[in-house]
């Protein structure tokens, strides 16, 4: 054992205080240029890019729990850009590019692991859909191919090619598919933001939004009221509750989304494997555990309990794909609260309150977009509400003008 470690072990003060990633908590100031509600990945990424690219540092991120303790801590960390609409693919492709450089940018390892994502088609309709997605993805610079059963067997030799009597007909092989350590993404952004002067206030719950003459002027919290030049809400499953405090409704319903993980085993599964028809996806983590995820719960609920029903249906399907997994033991199960829109695209940009901005509707698929959301939301704020091109299609108003961006086919059960 190195001597210095022994010294730390015997030291009564925590010796890393001066090297801590985050500064010690402070009192709230009376006023900030920008208040960001929600200290998940999206909130801290926005703060980071505001400070880094726009020199805006009089910023507070208010988080009712702890940094990244919401869906950022609960997702299954699938990163991909093989969506269906050109609006979506363009946006997610930018995010994947940013993700690739994050570890270097932060000087903090986010364990970005690019192993490709394989989505299985069990019907002719799915094969046609995949062909379209492959072409759109390639058009915008992604690496995606339609592959045949022989190629699938080579990629994933352990896969049952006839699961649940739904033979695997083809696969959408997305070489850019990846995972990353989700907590590290939040920590990296928070560290970079606070080093540049942003304040992160954990255990600080926003209890009301003060709106005067159509503009937000202040934010009430359990630790007092702060004035603000503008505010952003990035609170995932709580989006409608916050919007109600600011005085408007959103086209969102909140559903629990559950996931689970097994005990670790030897590495055997490199790509992320997903089957929309079986409502299930499986991946092996760097530690050897298998992570299972699927669709949201069947009805809206503000609760993150786990259910037996979901365990049964999800695992039955996972075992169809990999029958030998039947003998494995589950280690943990958890849920997050997801803010679902009816077109499976996000809601970003302006709200009915003039200087109150939205980053919501991220449902079951918003981890992968963390970097690009932060970057575009920061641009929106820095330009005083001028919406960046990349996020224009995701305006909340699209529901009033019937211009939805339908990503359902590319999102359901793949995240």
């Amino acid at each position: 054992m190195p001597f210095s470690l022994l010294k730390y072990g015997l030291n009564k003060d925590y010796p890393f205080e001066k090297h801590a990633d985050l500064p010690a908590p402070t009192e709230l100031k009376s006023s900030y240029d920008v208040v960001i509600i929600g200290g998940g990945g999206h909130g801290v990424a926005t703060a980071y890019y505001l400070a880094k690219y726009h020199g805006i540092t009089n910023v507070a991120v208010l988080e009712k729990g702890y940094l990244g303790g919401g869906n950022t801590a609960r997702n299954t960390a699938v990163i991909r850009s093989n969506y269906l609409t050109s609006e979506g693919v363009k946006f997610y492709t930018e995010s994947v590019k940013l993700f690739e450089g994050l570890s270097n940018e932060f000087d903090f390892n986010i364990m970005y692991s690019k192993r490709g994502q394989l989505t299985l088609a069990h019907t002719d309709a799915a094969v046609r859909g995949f062909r379209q997605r492959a072409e759109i993805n390639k058009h915008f610079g992604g690496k995606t191919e339609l592959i045949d059963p022989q190629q699938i067997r080579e990629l994933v030799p352990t896969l049952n090619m006839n699961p649940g009597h739904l033979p695997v007909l083809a696969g959408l092989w997305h070489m850019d598919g990846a995972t990353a350590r989700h907590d590290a993404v939040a920590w990296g952004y928070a560290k970079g933001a606070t080093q540049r002067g942003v304040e992160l206030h954990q255990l600080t719950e926003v209890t009301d939004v003060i709106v005067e003459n159509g503009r937000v002027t202040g934010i009430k919290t359990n630790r007092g009221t702060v004035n603000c030049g503008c505010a952003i809400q990035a609170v995932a499953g709580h989006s409608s509750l916050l919007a109600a405090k600011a005085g408007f409704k959103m086209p969102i319903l909140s559903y629990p989304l559950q996931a689970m993980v097994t005990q670790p085993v030897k590495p055997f599964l490199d790509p992320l494997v997903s089957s929309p028809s079986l409502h299930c996806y499986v991946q092996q983590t760097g530690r050897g555990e298998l992570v299972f995820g699927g669709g949201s719960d069947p009805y809206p609920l503000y609760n993150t309990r786990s259910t037996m029903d979901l365990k049964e249906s999800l695992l039955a399907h996972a075992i169809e794909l990999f029958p030998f997994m039947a003998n494995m033991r589950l280690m943990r199960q958890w849920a997050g609260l997801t803010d679902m829109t009816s077109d499976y695209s996000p809601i970003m940009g302006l709200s009915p309150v003039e200087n109150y901005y939205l980053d919501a509707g991220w449902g079951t698929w918003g981890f992968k977009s963390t970097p690009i959301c932060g970057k575009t939301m920061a641009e929106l704020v820095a330009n005083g509400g001028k919406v960046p091109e990349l996020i224009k299609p995701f305006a909340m108003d699209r529901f009033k003008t019937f211009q939805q961006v339908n990503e359902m086919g590319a999102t359901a059960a793949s995240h």
Partner: protein
Amino acid sequence: MKILNCPLNGPRNISEFVHGGEVRDMPDPNLCSDSEWADYVFYYENSITVIKEWWLHAPSGYWFIAERHTATDEILKTYDPSEIYKDRVEFSQPPKESVA
């Protein structure tokens, strides 16, 4: 297993039911504005409260209403829609499309 008490079939596993969304008044599609229609179709309160919602018992094709708390998931009441819909709801006739 979570149990839902169907007014027609009695207590059944909730997996036999399909959630049909909140009970709310539909605006007259021929008379309301686009914005009112969008509001009805896409926008929700989505708050933490007891809500009235439609449920379908799929095997018997029977629609009914349940009152459920959206955070505790407690189902407080279930009843036949006739308890609140006493009269037939009439909408205006759509304007005749001219056929070219």
